[in-house]
């Protein structure tokens, strides 16, 4: 039995932040969960999926990987309006996709606890931006909770369901990477009772948001705000720690940096800290009292000066003359790798050293930071960028497309492993802003330039948000080729299923949707499905597709080798370079650069422990010098 399903309370278990969310939801009696995966949120749905699959008799909630975040939120809204406790999870940029239902779901409200996880990613460990989703609480009017650690995450998730039910409104649970991906001992509570069947009571004047209804609902939302604010004023999650004549206001993971720093600076009796865990609506009265009680206050928050600006407004309104110190424009962050920010900046995540220094400087405390040792005299270090895996079919598709259109074509790309096609020697990624943008931007790029455009999108991303762009392209007579890289899974975020996966392989009872049938149904006239590792045939099919005037689609179908190892294991037969045949053209290295290849004395070699025998290099070697290990020996 998995510890996350343990019925006993009181025990402590080392949990990842994302596992703590799952346990908190189970203790709250979770009945319904939807998601779209994305780092740093993915382990929440992955854990729910795994538990459901391993213990179908013990687990009572319904779970699905939805096609995108908007769908996940809308599906969850249906369940919550019908009275089921519901969890919807996504990464920060996912909430942009779900922003439309979010804004009006705040108007209708829900009839059972509904929690929406938005996992932010300061410093962009694996994201396209580092937007601050605390603004979504302000934009939508939904209450927001910001835990600082895995154990708080578990408690707050549980509390969020109760709060949501009390206010009849969804609650946003906002985390950052360092909270999602931290592990600490978490004390378990009892598992909650699950109400698995809901009832929908028709009330169109509350739920059908035509203007006449929504005018009333907006007033309802404002009342909810007042109620939520009253709760926030007395919430134990908005707590004051320590005492002193100076103050710090902080939230999220920064709470840890601040409290550790005061400990290390020996300043616990000089500086008191207002930790805002229930951070929207702000407890304005509590904040005003805090501001009045100190001589100087420092705001420690990652990303945008959201709390800082609110504090300034409260101080102005109440006529409080306290000095407020926050983000400084004098010290802009330059580079996250080379030089961490020197003072509290708007870019990138904070760290204990930075926060300690900021506190010491603000309050004139005596502090000398331990000096990092000098890196002078170290040799230049080779980079270690992530790379497409040995045998990755994306590499073969990129090779074939480049053979046809060269490097001069424009390559809009999308979000997935294949974004690594950005790196040399492939270098076939020219424009990317969000999921699905490859398809839609291709039309604009082709019309604006008149150049050949080949767009790349993965199978999961295509289902997520490529379909509407493709309909648009067909309808408006755009001219480009779309390559759908169908590796049968959502590889980048950890091999989650999507509508196009072979459900039989996974043993899931979901329904498979065939991409080629779908694409033809959307009205695309030129559609071909290729096997990218059959190089010659692939090149021929791609040539025909790019020669076609209008929208053409090439579906490049081959299982992700990491995924295949799990669902359809087979014996690999590595290849080797036959030394007396190799003339050192190095096409294998210069054109495809598989991590199983290396150079030795100017000639290509293959590491048999890494090679999985995809035979791409063997097909492009002009001397036929690459053969399977057995044949060659």
């Amino acid at each position, binding site marked *: 039995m998995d510890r996350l399903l343990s019925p006993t309370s009181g025990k402590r278990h080392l949990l990842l932040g994302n596992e703590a969310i799952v346990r908190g939801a189970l203790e709250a009696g979770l009945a319904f969960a939807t998601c779209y995966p994305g780092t740093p949120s993915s382990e929440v749905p992955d854990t729910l999926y795994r538990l459901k699959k391993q213990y179908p008799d013990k687990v009572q909630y319904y779970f699905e990987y939805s096609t995108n975040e908007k769908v996940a939120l809308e599906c969850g809204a249906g369940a919550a309006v019908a009275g089921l406790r519901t969890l919807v999870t996504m990464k920060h940029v996912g909430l942009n996709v779900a922003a439309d239902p979010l804004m009006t779901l705040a108007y209708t409200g829900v009839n059972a606890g509904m929690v929406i996880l938005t996992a932010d990613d300061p410093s962009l460990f694996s994201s396209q931006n580092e937007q601050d989703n605390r603004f979504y609480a302000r934009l939508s009017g939904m209450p927001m909770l910001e835990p600082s650690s895995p154990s708080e995450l578990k408690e707050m998730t549980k509390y969020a369901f109760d709060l949501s039910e009390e206010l009849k409104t969804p609650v946003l649970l906002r985390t950052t990477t360092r909270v999602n*991906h931290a592990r600490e001992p978490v004390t378990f509570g009892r598992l909650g009772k699950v109400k698995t069947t809901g009832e929908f009571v028709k009330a169109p004047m509350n739920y059908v948001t035509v203007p006449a209804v929504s005018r009333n609902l907006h007033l309802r939302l404002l009342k909810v705000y007042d109620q939520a604010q009253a709760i926030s004023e007395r919430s134990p999650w908005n707590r004051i720690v320590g005492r002193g004549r100076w103050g710090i206001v902080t939230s999220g993971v920064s709470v840890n940096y601040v409290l550790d720093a005061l400990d290390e600076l020996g300043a616990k009796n000089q500086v008191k800290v207002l930790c805002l865990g229930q951070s929207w609506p702000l407890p304005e009265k509590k904040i005003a009292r805090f501001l009045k009680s100190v001589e100087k206050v420092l705001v420690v928050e990652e990303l945008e000066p959201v709390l800082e600006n609110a504090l300034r407004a409260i101080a102005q309104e109440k006529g409080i003359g306290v000095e407020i110190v926050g983000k400084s424009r004098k010290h802009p962050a330059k580079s996250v790798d080379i030089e961490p920010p020197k003072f509290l900046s708007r870019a990138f995540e904070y760290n*204990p050293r930075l926060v300690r220094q900021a506190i010491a400087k603000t309050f004139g405390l005596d502090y000398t930071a331990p*000096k*990092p040792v000098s*890196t002078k*005299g170290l040799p230049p270090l080779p980079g*270690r960028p992530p790379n497409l895996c040995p045998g990755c079919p994306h590499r073969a598709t990129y090779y074939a497309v480049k053979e046809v259109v060269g490097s001069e074509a424009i390559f809009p790309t999308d979000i997935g*492993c294949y974004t690594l096609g950005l790196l040399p020697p492939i270098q076939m990624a020219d424009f990317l802003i969000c999921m699905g943008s490859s398809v839609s931007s291709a039309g604009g790029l082709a019309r604006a330039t008149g150049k050949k455009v080949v767009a790349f999108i993965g199978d999961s991303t295509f289902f997520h948000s490529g379909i509407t762009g493709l309909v648009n392209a067909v309808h408006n007579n755009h001219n480009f080729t779309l390559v759908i890289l169908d590796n049968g899974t959502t590889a980048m975020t950890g091999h989650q299923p999507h509508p196009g996966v072979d459900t039989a392989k996974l043993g899931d009872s979901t329904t498979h949707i065939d991409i080629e049938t779908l694409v033809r149904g959307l009205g695309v006239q030129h559609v071909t499905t290729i096997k990218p590792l059959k190089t010659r045939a692939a090149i021929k099919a791609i040539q025909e597709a790019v020669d076609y005037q209008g929208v053409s689609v090439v579906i490049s179908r081959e299982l992700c080798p990491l995924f295949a190892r799990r669902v359809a294991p087979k014996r690999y037969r590595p290849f080797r370079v036959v030394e007396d045949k190799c003339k050192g053209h190095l096409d294998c290295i210069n054109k495809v650069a598989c*991590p199983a*290849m290396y150079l030795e004395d100017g000639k290509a070699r293959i590491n048999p422990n890494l090679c999985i025998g995809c035979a791409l290099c063997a097909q492009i070697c002009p001397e036929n010098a690459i053969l399977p290990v057995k044949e060659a020996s």
Partner: protein
Amino acid sequence: MKTQRIVNVGVGGQGNLLASNLLGLAAVDAGVPVMVSEIHGMAQRGGVVESAVILGGATSPIVAEGEADILVSFEPVETLRLLAKCNRDTIVITNTRPLPPFTVAIGMAPYPDVEAGLKLVGRRVGQLVAFDGQALAEEAGNPLSLNMVMLGALFARGGLEVPVRAIKKMIRTHTKERFVPSNLKAFDLGFKYAQAA
């Protein structure tokens, strides 16, 4: 209780996250306050993987520049890359067997003279324990047990509050059954080597 900040660094596939997780579990078992943090994402695709274990009660999940008490590195170039995490008192424990990044393999960049680099490290930090941990993993009968070798060395030299029996218990209960004997052997080999070094 003294706070100890431990940084583990390695390359995707070397088992660095498992090592941090086992240390975290052992700390819980022994009643030592612990916070573990890790960066997921690109680990499977040959990139650098870094994790941190903070023992003794501090709750900040990351270790800043100059603030690692112990740096455990599974690959020598990565030791050099993270040197700025260390200060003059830091204990550096490193595997010396290179795992050349792909950029080196295809001739885009040279692999540096790590021996000279590590000599420099040794002069600047508190202690340097540098050894061919990969050879010990192979001696233990499982080339993938480098993470256990490095854990052994960490327990020999780190002065941790977590006792050896706690980590061995976790290796027994939380690694794959058929690898337990080789994992324990790898741990012991790393421990013995580092203790004598």
